């Protein structure tokens, strides 16, 4: 009996090992590339280690810092615009008995439903005509259409999780509608809204296609730099940039996990 169980561990260990390799293999490779001074085929490991590329990336003349700043500015603006739209929209969708509530929620998925490339090419053409191409505002608008689906869906769920009695209790003892919203509904929905903000931020930080068509080459976000470096064969710069992108993602995911309560998640899409 025991031997039987022991035998079962073999395939399990193998699958676990394989999974670990699939997840951590590329990561390790990426980390190695960031500190490799010299590394070429057929060597398994870099021949020389060092931080000269880091210096190059972070030097005042390198574009990495500028791109990082651009990315953060775009992402922050995207979050602000998305939440400014998602808070009223999410509140309305959660509170009012709107007809076609499900359809409205679904409509926010439309930007995701079509192939990205033709959509963005057309947007780029249109933006070019009205002078939005190559501007931060243009890139932010593209990112907002993309991020709004997370923002609205999660905001709707977050507001639905706040019992309407709590709001009415405030109204009944003298709070106007805006005051009740500010003092009761908003603080109680804040964790969910925070989570949606983080999702939008990460989406924007990561977004490539739209940024490429609408922003490049004037608005140079981090993924665009990564693309240029990668396609130019400069793996060190590409890896360091990728790492820069990875840090906020992992950090925020940990925060989101703390903020998004199960009762909010369960209301997504309802």
């Amino acid at each position, binding site marked *: 009996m025991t031997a039987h169980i022991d035998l079962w561990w073999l395939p399990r260990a193998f699958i676990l090992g394989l999974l670990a390799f699939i997840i951590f293999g590329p990561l390790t490779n990426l980390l190695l590339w960031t500190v490799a001074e010299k590394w070429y085929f057929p060597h398994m490991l870099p021949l020389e280690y060092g931080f000269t590329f880091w210096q190059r990336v972070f030097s005042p003349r390198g574009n990495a810092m500028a791109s990082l700043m651009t990315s953060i500015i775009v992402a922050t603006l995207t979050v602000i615009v998305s939440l400014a739209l998602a808070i009223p929209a999410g509140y309305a969708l959660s509170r009012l008995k709107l007809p076609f509530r499900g359809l409205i929620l679904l409509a926010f998925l439309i930007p995701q439903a079509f192939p990205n490339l033709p959509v963005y090419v057309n947007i780029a053409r249109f933006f070019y005509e009205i002078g939005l191409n190559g501007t931060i505002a243009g890139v932010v608008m593209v990112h907002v259409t993309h991020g709004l689906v997370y923002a609205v869906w999660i905001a709707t769920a977050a507001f639905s999780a706040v*019992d309407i*009695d*709590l709001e*009415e*209790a*405030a*109204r*009944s*003892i*003298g*709070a*106007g*509608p805006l*005051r*009740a919203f500010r*003092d*009761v509904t908003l*603080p*109680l929905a804040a964790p969910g809204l925070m989570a949606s903000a983080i999702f939008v931020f990460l989406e924007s930080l990561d977004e490539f296609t739209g940024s490429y068509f609408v922003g490049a080459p004037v608005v140079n976000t981090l993924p665009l730099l990564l693309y240029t470096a990668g396609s130019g064969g400069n793996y060190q710069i590409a890896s360091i940039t990728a790492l820069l992108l990875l840090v906020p993602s992992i950090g925020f995911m940990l925060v989101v996990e703390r903020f998004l309560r199960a009762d909010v998640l369960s209301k997504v899409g309802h």
Partner: protein
Amino acid sequence: MRPFLSVEKMSVGYGTTTVLDKLDLGIRKGEFVALLGSSGCGKTTLLRTIAGFTKPFSGSIRVADRDVTQMPPDKRGMALVFQSYALWPHMTVAQNIGYGLKLQRQSRENIDARVNEMQNLLGLAGLGDRKPGQLSGGQRQRVALGRALAIDPEILLLDEPLSNLDARIRLTVRHEIRSLQKRLGITAIHVTHDREEAMVMADRIIIMNTGRIEQEGSPEDVYNKPASPFVAAFMGAENLLSMQARVQGEQVELMEGSFNPSIVTALAGRTLATGPIELRFRAEAARLARSEDKTVLQPGTLELRGQVTSVSYPGGHWRHAIRLGENEILVDADTPFNQGEAVRVCIPAKSLFIFNVVEGLAEARAL
């Protein structure tokens, strides 16, 4: 004198369904009124409309000659205590109670003093820094009450505030709320489906059924002089018998049936017509006697002959199920009778609730 709160010809509903139709209601200042009815009768809708959370289709609501019909809830000078308490989980007990005062832009010292006063009044002293999640059900209920009372509302609205408490606490909280209301002289409207709760707490009981007011009056009135079969049944007169009646002047004769000799009694204010009637009485209003017991009955006492089918002891007295042909009635007695024993059930005239049977209604009930 005009009532302090008056509701006139008010119709309320949701979408195309009308819940309350042309309802009229007046409440005096300082009065404690209970809206009593089973679930779905419209009592909560009435309360929420008075509070301003539901807009009436037509009609008006006035408080002290001020028309509040179109006013938002926060401008009405009322405070609603919710069935769920609706305490704000992100605020402490003190912040919950003080929120209404903060809205009135009162000074910090004033707010602190009033919050302390409320906490002492409601036995919440020392709990000011707790969050609602750390309180027991009874404490939460009192915080909800304190939050409503802190702003010194003109009208206190209570939406089944005791239904989430366990039975023993509920009994004490009833009296607490009632004595508090008397001491502070607040006008209060209390929605409940618990008859005893309404009887104990209210100056006046308004019994509602399917969106209409069936009867309003003091607890004694609605208990002893129910104006309709619904009120009689709701107030505990569950025993139901069908008979024929003949009205002659100020007298009514209940015709002889298969279980009873005929009796004649005074109308005593009842409005009855000759024809089929339904007769209701409470289990505790009837007296049980052995069939060989030949005590002479007071004139007007209805006597029924039946057989004991079962005996139980709910506490205090023995409850007997008595079979009368097709019907079964419940009668209380201080001493138990034997199962199968033939008995006489004697019901004094004043405990008989007699109503004419309305044609359509009788058929509806038979279904």
